Structure formats: structure tokens, C-alpha cells
């Protein structure tokens, strides 16, 4: 099938069929196209294999400073002839008028036989006219006129092709500052044998199916949302029911119920966002009177006297989702062996960096009673990582303030070539479950989702997820 040609391409082909091997300027003149159109057309023809461009080293000629002056005032010898006119003029007078150009002017005029030199009236030497220059003028003048009219440098080939200009170039190049040669490349375009047939093919109705189309961007959900939904999917598939809770919590559920001492560094303002402006946590009461009393007593037993209810009442942005699950277990009748999870944003009062955000998503699952074991939870987690496509895992002991024993999952990151800490897990401490009346062993597991999303989407800077960079949001997805 013949390629479809644009009108520009057709005009270039017809110009080249008249005379092959023209350069861009010549094509433009012959085909009536702007330099930009010629350049694009030649590019398209090259891509379609219908034309080839041969570049060869060449030179371009333009006027030098003396040449430009001569273009305005005439060559020095032409000026000298004008001064001599019809009579005899003293040599000293001419020298004063012509200045440094006097010598070359006299020399050229004498060589041409246009003047005669003899005795002057006052004893000095004088110049008188001899025969006038021929019809062709003085050598060099034609080229100066030609170059003076040209807009830019003229390819050497153009000059050499004209005998008169070529002779002038020879003459002027002997004199300094009249013409300048610069190295250049001449690009000549030759038609391929297929071009004629292509140009002859009818164009009606056909379009260039190979040409690029303008970009279209698919609308889609956010990569982080995709990972969050994937995590939800996996938790549900593992038998966990989702529960929800508020992001603003009283300290009681975020810290006190989890046996975090009231003077614990994590509770300080540089780590935790407390609400200002008198804002209070949602809900009509912080917790039941029984829970408050029991938690207070547990704190006094574990950490010494001085537990303050007022401190527990302060509103914080939750620092983890554990407060939601533990509160749910404390305030609801949960069947033995229930599997629950909560997912949402959590907050830490720190400056954002490439690996930490002040606000991120966390998921936490709990298995409440029903013969749950740590080993079983390890098994559930292994299944989870397989579901979300993160195969190799191992478990290391670690420390969390409200679980004992505590383990962390290490996932092998092939790209980084190292084990990366992902989710944590453990059994809620009796100091947490006992005062809240939660019976049986409660296993908890979970962690930050952004870190997982980073690995899945090949993101090296976690801030990217919240930067709303449209180019990235609608660009190609990693997986």
C-alpha cells in the first residue's frame, strides 16, 4: 500500500522531480513553501523512505568589514577614479583623501591601466586618467553587489557556479577583510525511486494512519487508593470484617486504654497532634464510667499514683488505628474468635520527609479469642503478603508498648536488595484487655499502608502520594 502524502510532501516531490539534489532553499523557492514547511516535509519524506538527504562539508561566503564599506562607498580604486575625474590630481592630495586605502587603490588602478602617473605642476607627482574600466566594471564589484543584496552567507557552490562571481571571489580573497568564508554543510535532497509512485497515488479519503494522535488521559483512582482497596480486599478475604471509628479521639482511647503512661514521651506535643481552640473529641462521653475507673486503676498499679482523668479527656488526632479496634472490642459484644479490622488515616506530629509523613494510612486487624495463637497469626500474615504480591517474609521479635509478645514482619524488597520492616503484630497486653473487660487472647496486626504502596508503585518519596502531581496521576502505572 502507498503511504499517504501531505500536500507539502507532494510539492517537494514535484520540485525534486524537476531537478533532483536541490538544497532546502532551492526547494522552498521552487515549491513555494516556507523554510519551516520544507524542513518538516523533508523530515516526513525521510521517515517514509521516499527521500534521502546528503550532507557534505561546504563553505558559505559573506562580506567582511572592508567589503561592506566598499558596498556602500565603492572599492577604493573606484573612489580614486572618481577623484581623478578628467584632470590631473596631485598624488599627495589623493593620499590625504584616501588614507590607508590609497596604496592598494593606486596599485589596482595602475595594474588595470586606468590611470597614468607623471610630474605634477608644483614638482610633486600627479595622477591623470587613462582608459576607463571595461563594461564588466572593476574586478570584485559584481560579487560585492551580489553579497550586499543577500540576506545571509551564500553557499560557495552558488558563487563558483557563476564564472564572473568566481573570478571576483578570486580577486577579493587576495585583499584582506573583503570576503569571509565560513565552514558550513550543504544538505541536498534526493528522491527515492518509490517517491514518484507515491505521489501519483490518489489521496482522496485516505488519512495518515501512522501519524501521532494527540494524547488522551484515562481518568482513574489514585495509586494509594488502589493499594488501600487491595489491602481491604485481602483483609476481607482472610475473614476480617471492617469496623470504623473517628480520627479525633480522646487521649483515653488513643493512649490510656493502651496502657501508655501519662508521662510517656510519645504523648508529648512534639510527637502527637492535640486539638486546639477548645475542640473536643466526638461522642457524648469519653468512655463508660466503669472503663475510666478500671483503666485509671490499672495505670496507678503499673506506673504509680497520679493518673489524671483530665489528661485522658484531651482530644488528639489518633496516632494509630489500635484505638478504634480496642474501643470496639471494649464497647461491643464481640463473638469469640471474631476477626475485625479498621483502616484509616493516623497522625504524627513530625516534619514530612521522603520516608515519613505527618499523616498516613494504617490498617489494623484483630483476632479476638477463639483459640488464636501467635503462630496462627504468623500464618494469616503470610497469606496476606502472598495475596498482595509480596512473597518472601520472615518475623523478628520487636517491641510495641501495648502488645506482648510482639513481632514485626520483614519483607524482602528485591529492588532494594534488603529486608524491609512492614507490619507489626502481637498479643494485647493484659493491662490493656483486663480493665476493659475484654476476654481471651486478642491478637493484633497491622501497619502503615503508604510504605507498602511505595514498594508496589516504585515510589521512593512518600510525599509523592499527596503531591497531586497531575502528570504522575494520569501517567502510566508501574504495575
Amino acid at each position, binding site marked *: 500500500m502507498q503511504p499517504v502524502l501531505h500536500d507539502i510532501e507532494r510539492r517537494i516531490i514535484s520540485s525534486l522531480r524537476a531537478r533532483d539534489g536541490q538544497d532546502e532553499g532551492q526547494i522552498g523557492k521552487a515549491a513555494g513553501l516556507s523554510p519551516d514547511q520544507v524542513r518538516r516535509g523533508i523530515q516526513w519524506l525521510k521517515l517514509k523512505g521516499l527521500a534521502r538527504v546528503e550532507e557534505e562539508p561546504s563553505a558559505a561566503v559573506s562580506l567582511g568589514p572592508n567589503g561592506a564599506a566598499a558596498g556602500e562607498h565603492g572599492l577604493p580604486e573606484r573612489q580614486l577614479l572618481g577623484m581623478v575625474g578628467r584632470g590631473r590630481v596631485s598624488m599627495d592630495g589623493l593620499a590625504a583623501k584616501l588614507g590607508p586605502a590609497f596604496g592598494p587603490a593606486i596599485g589596482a588602478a595602475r595594474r588595470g591601466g586606468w590611470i597614468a602617473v607623471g610630474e605634477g605642476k608644483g614638482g610633486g607627482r600627479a595622477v591623470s586618467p587613462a582608459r576607463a574600466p571595461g563594461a564588466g566594471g572593476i574586478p570584485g564589484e559584481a560579487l560585492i553587489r551580489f553579497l550586499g543584496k543577500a540576506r545571509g552567507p551564500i553557499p560557495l557552490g552558488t558563487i563558483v557556479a557563476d564564472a564572473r562571481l568566481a573570478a571576483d571571489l578570486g580577486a577579493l580573497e587576495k585583499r584582506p577583510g573583503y570576503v569571509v568564508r565560513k565552514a558550513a554543510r550543504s544538505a541536498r535532497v534526493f528522491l527515492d525511486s518509490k517517491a514518484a509512485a507515491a505521489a501519483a497515488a490518489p489521496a482522496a479519503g485516505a488519512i495518515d494512519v501512522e501519524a501521532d494522535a494527540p494524547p488522551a*488521559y484515562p481518568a482513574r483512582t489514585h495509586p494509594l*487508593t488502589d493499594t488501600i482497596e487491595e489491602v481491604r480486599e485481602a483483609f476481607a478475604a482472610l475473614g476480617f470484617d471492617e469496623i470504623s471509628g473517628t480520627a*479525633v479521639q480522646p487521649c483515653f482511647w488513643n493512649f490510656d486504654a493502651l496502657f501508655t503512661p501519662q508521662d510517656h514521651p510519645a504523648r508529648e506535643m512534639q510527637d502527637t497532634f492535640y486539638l486546639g481552640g477548645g475542640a473536643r473529641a466526638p461522642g457524648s462521653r469519653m468512655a463508660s464510667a466503669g472503663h475510666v475507673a478500671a483503666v485509671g486503676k490499672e495505670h496507678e498499679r503499673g506506673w504509680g499514683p497520679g493518673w489524671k482523668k483530665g489528661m485522658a479527656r484531651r482530644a488528639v488526632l489518633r496516632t494509630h488505628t489500635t484505638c478504634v479496634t480496642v474501643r470496639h472490642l471494649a464497647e461491643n459484644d464481640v463473638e469469640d474468635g471474631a476477626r475485625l479490622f479498621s483502616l484509616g488515616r493516623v497522625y504524627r506530629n513530625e516534619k514530612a520527609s521522603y520516608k515519613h509523613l505527618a499523616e498516613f494510612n494504617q490498617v489494623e486487624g484483630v483476632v479476638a479469642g477463639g483459640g488464636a495463637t501467635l503462630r496462627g497469626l504468623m500464618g494469616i500474615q503470610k497469606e496476606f503478603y502472598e495475596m498482595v504480591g509480596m512473597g518472601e517474609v520472615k518475623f523478628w521479635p520487636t517491641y510495641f508498648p501495648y502488645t506482648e509478645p510482639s513481632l514485626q514482619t520483614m519483607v524482602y524488597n528485591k529492588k532494594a536488595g534488603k529486608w524491609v520492616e512492614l507490619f507489626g503484630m502481637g498479643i494485647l497486653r493484659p493491662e490493656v484487655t483486663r480493665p476493659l473487660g475484654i476476654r481471651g487472647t486478642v491478637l493484633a496486626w497491622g501497619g502503615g499502608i503508604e510504605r507498602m504502596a511505595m514498594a508496589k508503585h516504585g515510589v521512593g518519596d512518600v510525599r509523592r502520594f499527596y503531591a497531586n502531581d497531575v502528570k504522575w496521576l494520569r501517567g502510566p502505572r508501574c504495575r
Partner: protein
Amino acid sequence: MPVVELRHDRLGELLGGGHGEDEIAATLPYLGLDIEGRTGGGIRVEYSPNRPDYSTDYGIAAGLRGLLGIKEGAEPLRVRGPAGKEQAVRARSSVSAVRPFVTAVAASAPGGAVGAGALEQFISMQEDLHAGIGRGRRAAAVGIHDMEALRFPLEYAAAPGGRAHRFVPLDSGGAEVTAGSIIDGGTKTGAAYGRIIRGARAVPLITDAAGLTVSLPPIINAARTAVAPGRTKEVLVEVTGTRRRAVEDALSVAAATLNEAGFALRRVKVSGAGNRTPPLGPRTMRLDAKTAGKVLGLDMTARRAAACLRRSRLDARARGGRIVECAVPRHRFDVRGPMDLVEEVAIGYGVGSIEPAVPPCRGPGRRSPGAAAMRAVRLAMVGLGYTEALSPTLSSARVLYGNAGRDPAAAIPVADPQSGEHTVLRDSLLPGMLDALSRNVHEPYPQRLFEAGPAFARGPGNRVREGARLCAVSSHARTSYTEIKAALAAAAAALPGGAALKTVAQEHPVFEKGRSAAVLLGGAEAGSAGEVGGEARKRFRIREPVAAFEVELPINI
């Protein structure tokens, strides 16, 4: 989490050779130590704040010995009696209001003098104790002194001269200064810790029998009692603080560490104003091996559990088939109850040796109704050609109110934010979306974005009300109110129950007058829609026209 630098040569020596660097590096994580990085001659590890005994290589070597099978059970801690009746610290009630508790122990160095390497470890331990259980030196602060510079008995009391008391502290370059100038921040440590006792009437001071200053706790020791590596034969470790438990906990860690380092401990009698000589002996706890097995999912007998505990460097023995009797050293105050012993069993068993077992499958669970509804809304918006954006819910007053021209009266700020970009909980999603458009003016138009997520408002009684909101923006040369209302109608139809939509003319600070509407969903006011006005666009530096809507969703997330 605190970090310890371990050097291969020291660690190798402490373990008695025969264990390669790789074996050690592979074992450390199973003690609960995170490898932070490897340096030329060693490893940087992070330890958990509940194990301050891991703040030195002595403590970590002790743990490794257990898992590597070099030594099991607790390291015996022998404390000899005081060198004389005078070897004592007496506290006075004059410090009770400011810093009531004091405790101490003495220890003489193995090989005749304290080595430089050992001293480096003790100082790093001291710093970690200050930061952890010391709560920034308020609850407990540790001082280490050269015994030869002291004359017993010591006295812990308020300085008689008060703030005018003069002595040469460790960090004044040899100059004598007043306690007051230190407390007010005249020295480096004073600037860092002076505030702890700045407001108090009394200036707590430890002095010796010669009346010379030993320490101004919790800020700085006297220069004359400084430990000199290679010369100091015996050290005194004293701890003062506001809580007896923290003070004695800190001392127990120091004592255990000195003991591991081969120092011979000697009791120092402590008395006066509610103080006592610190008990450094172990507690006995019992563990039901069957419980441990049930929690861990392992087949456990008392004998097996006891063997695991011994590998965790605790003294334990089986009392019959089920019960294990365990002696918990004083410095293992993180062991509070049986569940803590279960963890020690797991560590001694080797967490790497526990084979994960998948429990029997239950039926599938369900995402919450709110999450499912939010997903439906998102998919509808994507179908309408809108790409999802995500913004932090903690925004700034500049974006939420300044640029948007909205009234900040009901703003919900957070106290002391670390970053100026996260200072106010968002009550609207639209400003964040306009901010997103303003950061993408170089990207091709049309730009159609949406966000669906939580927002916060002040409800009755100043209680925060959390709700789900949906906001969409369309920005391009020919966008219009009609375009965005069409999208809004389609989104409303995707809501649970397909809420009926109505729009009525209403002004809005962001929208152009005459092209601004209140949105009613199911008859209740839920948000607004309109064409973003020129002023708002100018403040957000958006040149292309923008149409937008934002509604509160009848979804509980």
C-alpha cells in the same frame, strides 16, 4: 528508637571468639534488635526502649550468649556489703519537694582501673537512661563518680546557700560558678536541663563528708569527681529523681551493666526522707507452660519452657509438668507478668524457628458499608472522566481560608505543629483541590480532578464532627456551571439510595456571583457548586477557568 554502635572487635572479645560477624549480625534481630546499618568495624543497632540493658555492648553480648548457646540463665549479680559503715548516702527532707529520691551503688573496676572503652559504653548507657526511663532527666538522672574523690558519708540535701552555692562543674572549663547561673542556663547542660528545677525553692545538691560538692542533680556533676579512664579504680553510681521506681530501675540497669563488664559491686547504704538502700535481687514469677504453649501455638512443657527462658538469660526451672518458676533479675523490670515471660519463651525458642501455621479458614469478611459506598462514589467519578487526587486532612490556614477567601472562625487548629503546612483540620476539600490545580498549571488541560474523603467540622458543644465529602473540579477554557452540575447529578445518582439533587442560587466566597449555587441532596443542604471566581483563581494562581462542586456525603466512614 535509641541506637548502639557495636564494634566487631569488642563484641568478639566479649563473646570469647568463635562467632563470625555474619553469624552475630544474623542473630541480633532475633533478640529484638534492628540493624540500622553496618559500618567499617561494626554494626549500628536500634534497641527497644523497654530494654535499656541493651544500651551497651555488654548487655547485647549477654543476650547473644543466650541465643548462641554460650551461656544460659541469668548472670549472677553479687553485691558485697559496704566498705564501711560510713559508705552511705543520707537524704534530707529539704529536697523532698523538688527531687525526693536518691539511690546509689559502688563498683570497682576489673584489672585495677576503668578502661576507656568501658567508660564510653557507660556514658552511652547513661544518656539512653536519661532519655528513656529518666524522661529527659526529670524522672531519673544518673551520675558516675570517681570514688577516690569522695569522702563518705554523702549528703543529698538542699544547698544551704541556695542559688548562690558555688562550685566547679564539669562543663565550665574549670571556672567556679553559682548553682543559680547553671540553673538559669549559663552552662551548656544548664541550658538543656536547668528548667527541670528552675521553678523550685530548693537547689538539690549532693555533697561529701568534706562539704565538697559532688553533683547538682539533674544537671551536672562537679569537675573534681570525674572518672578518669586508666586511673579511676572504683566508681560510685548515684541516681536521683522524682519517682522512686524510675530511680531504682535506672540504678538496676547500671548495676547489671557494670556486673556484665566485670566490675565488683558494693552496696551503698541509702537512707533518710523516705529513701532506702536499693534492692537489687531478683523476683520470682511463675509461668504456666501450657498457657505459654496455647498463646504461641507451640507444644510446650514446663521443661521446654524453662529451657527457652534460660536461653533468654533468665533463671528458670520446671516445677512439675506445667509450672515454671522463673527468677527475674531486678533490671528486667519490663517483665511485668506472665505474658512477658511468654515473649521470653518465644525469643528463647527462636522466633525464626516458629513455623507459621494457617488457622482454619472462616467465611470471608466484609468491608464496612461506608468504605463500600465511598468506593462506588470514586468509581462513578472516574467513569465521568475525573482523576482521583489525595490531599492531607491536616491543611494550612493559608490554603483553607486565606487563598479560598473563607471565614476561619470555626477552624479546628492543632497545638504546636512541627510544620506550617499542617496546622488546621480541613473543613472543606475544595481549597485543597484548587491548590492542586494551582500546582499543575503547566500540565495539559482539561484537568478534571476529584477527591472523596474525610473532613471535620465543629459541632454542638465544640465536639468535632467527622464526615465524608466529595469535591470535583473541572478546569479548561470552556468549562461551565452546566458541566459541573451534570457531573454532580451523575455522582448523586451513584450515592446509596440515589439522593435527589436540587440546586438553588446562593453566594459562596469561592464562586462567581450569579454562577454559584447551594446543593441540596435529598432535601438537605449538602454543599455548593459553581464557577470559581476570578479573585479566588488569582489567589491560587490559576489562569484557566474552573467549575467545581463539593458536597457532604450521606456516608458514615
